[in-house]
């Protein structure tokens, strides 16, 4: 810059002279000087010679450490070609007292396999010991939070799932008995945003339909809204909160809102989630419409989820 300025001032001085033949040469010389100094000034940073490309669109990742906040789905998805083996485990209630070793004597469990068909589509199946219930779901990312060009400030995911009670005799009172009575469905939209490296929040309006309910007054269609969040404490440890507010609670079934508080610990290919929750159910139908534990009364279970991922298809080859 300084050099260019100097050259300019010289240019003015010289052009002031009347000798036109010399003038041209001097003008040229000055131009050369400008050029040379201008360039050497620049070449201190060679990479600047390559024009920096416009900031590219970049998808926001790692809003949550896991594909579940605790019980419910998170705005995070598996990579393409990744298989996630997930064990969810809940002990009994803390208020069971010393006789039940504060709940440790009892256990319910859900095994599940989730698979990332693409970056935006995951399919999963699972089986819970409670009601011997099978569940399956499809999860699709409609909008992906991104930065850079044409950025979008939030993510939207859609989940559609189905549950199936596999008990030999689901309910003795039901008459007449239809096989479809075993089925339940849930549909969910996840609207979430990773606000910062430390904080993510998501809202999940959910609709659950149960083909069979015990009492006439019990609703077949249950509406709920979930609120999930994460606060990262360190690179590998985070606090999580997973709350579902049930809008049309059934009087006879003693519905409670489901609240879970937990810690995520990540170690390489594993994610451990340790939590306290008032829900025993570990699929959407179960924890939204069957939670009757009351936090105030100490109906709280200690539980953990373990997620272990396996790479089935090389990430570099599955790149779309």
């Amino acid at each position, binding site marked *: 810059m300084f050099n260019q300025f100097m050259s300019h001032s010289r240019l003015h001085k010289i052009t002031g002279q009347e000798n036109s033949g010399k003038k*041209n*040469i001097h003008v*040229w*010389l000055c*131009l*050369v000087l400008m*050029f040379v100094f201008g*360039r050497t000034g620049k*070449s201190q*940073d*060679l*990479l600047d*010679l*390559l024009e920096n490309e416009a900031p590219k669109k*970049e998808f926001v*990742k*790692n809003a949550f450490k896991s594909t579940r906040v605790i019980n419910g789905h998170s705005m995070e998805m598996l*990579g*393409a*070609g*990744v298989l996630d083996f997930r064990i969810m485990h809940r002990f009994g209630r803390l208020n069971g007292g010393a006789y039940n070793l504060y709940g440790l004597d009892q256990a319910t469990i859900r095994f599940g396999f989730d698979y990332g068909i693409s970056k935006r589509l995951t399919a999963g199946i699972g089986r819970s010991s409670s009601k011997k219930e099978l569940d399956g779901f499809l999860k699709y990312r409609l909008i992906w939070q991104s930065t850079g060009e044409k950025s979008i400030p939030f993510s939207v995911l859609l989940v559609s799932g189905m549950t199936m009670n596999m008990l030999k005799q689901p309910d003795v009172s039901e008459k007449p008995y239809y096989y479809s009575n075993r089925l339940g469905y849930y549909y969910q939209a996840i609207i979430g945003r990773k606000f910062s*490296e430390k904080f993510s929040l998501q809202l999940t309006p959910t609709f659950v339909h149960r083909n069979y309910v015990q009492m006439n007054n019990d609703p077949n269609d249950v509406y709920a809204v979930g609120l999930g969040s994460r606060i990262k404490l360190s*690179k*590998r440890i985070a606090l999580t909160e997973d709350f579902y507010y049930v809008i049309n609670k059934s009087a006879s079934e003693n519905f409670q809102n489901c609240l879970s508080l937990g810690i995520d610990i*990540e*170690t*390489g*290919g594993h994610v451990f989630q340790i939590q306290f929750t008032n829900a025993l159910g570990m699929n959407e139908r179960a924890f939204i419409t069957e939670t009757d534990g009351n936090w105030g009364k100490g109906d709280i279970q200690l539980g953990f989820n373990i997620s272990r*991922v396996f*790479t089935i298809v*090389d*990430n*570099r080859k599955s*790149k779309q």
Partner: protein
Amino acid sequence: MKKNLLILLSITFSLVASAQSKYFTRNGRVFFTASSPLEKIEAINDKSTSVIDLSNGQIEFGVLLKAFLFERSLMQEHFNENYVESDKFPKATFKGTIADVASIDRTKDGTYPVKVTGKMTLHGVTKDVETTATFTVKNGALSATTDFKIEAADYNIEIPGLVKDKVAKTISINVQSIYEPLKTS
């Protein structure tokens, strides 16, 4: 008039000469491995940029860390989120000089081993790096390759106790670039 023409000619020549001394690539390949007997940890970046100036031996690299591709997508996420923290430090750079750059004869096919010294910045830490690079001239085309090692700890890249046996502390890096002449006008 004659004088003017001469100056004009000399300018154009000097411009051509300076343009030819600089070479660049946008598709430089950077490969690294931090594998251990327990776990394969390696990644390739095919989008690194580099510029060299053979008139004074300057050499620079810019490597976007998010462009490293791993076999496992989770490993890639952990690399970016936990190890190099690419949101905070998106780019690794190297700025150095080629010693004995005059030995590289761009008009003659052959391989030219040279010493490269400079400063590498990664994860917000700048350290001196020294390596031997091999420049190759073939049919007028210029390419370069080098291997060197860095210590993760030197760049404040923390390897947690739980995976200590799985991640190598020393990272081996291989760089391959095929250069094109840089037209600066």
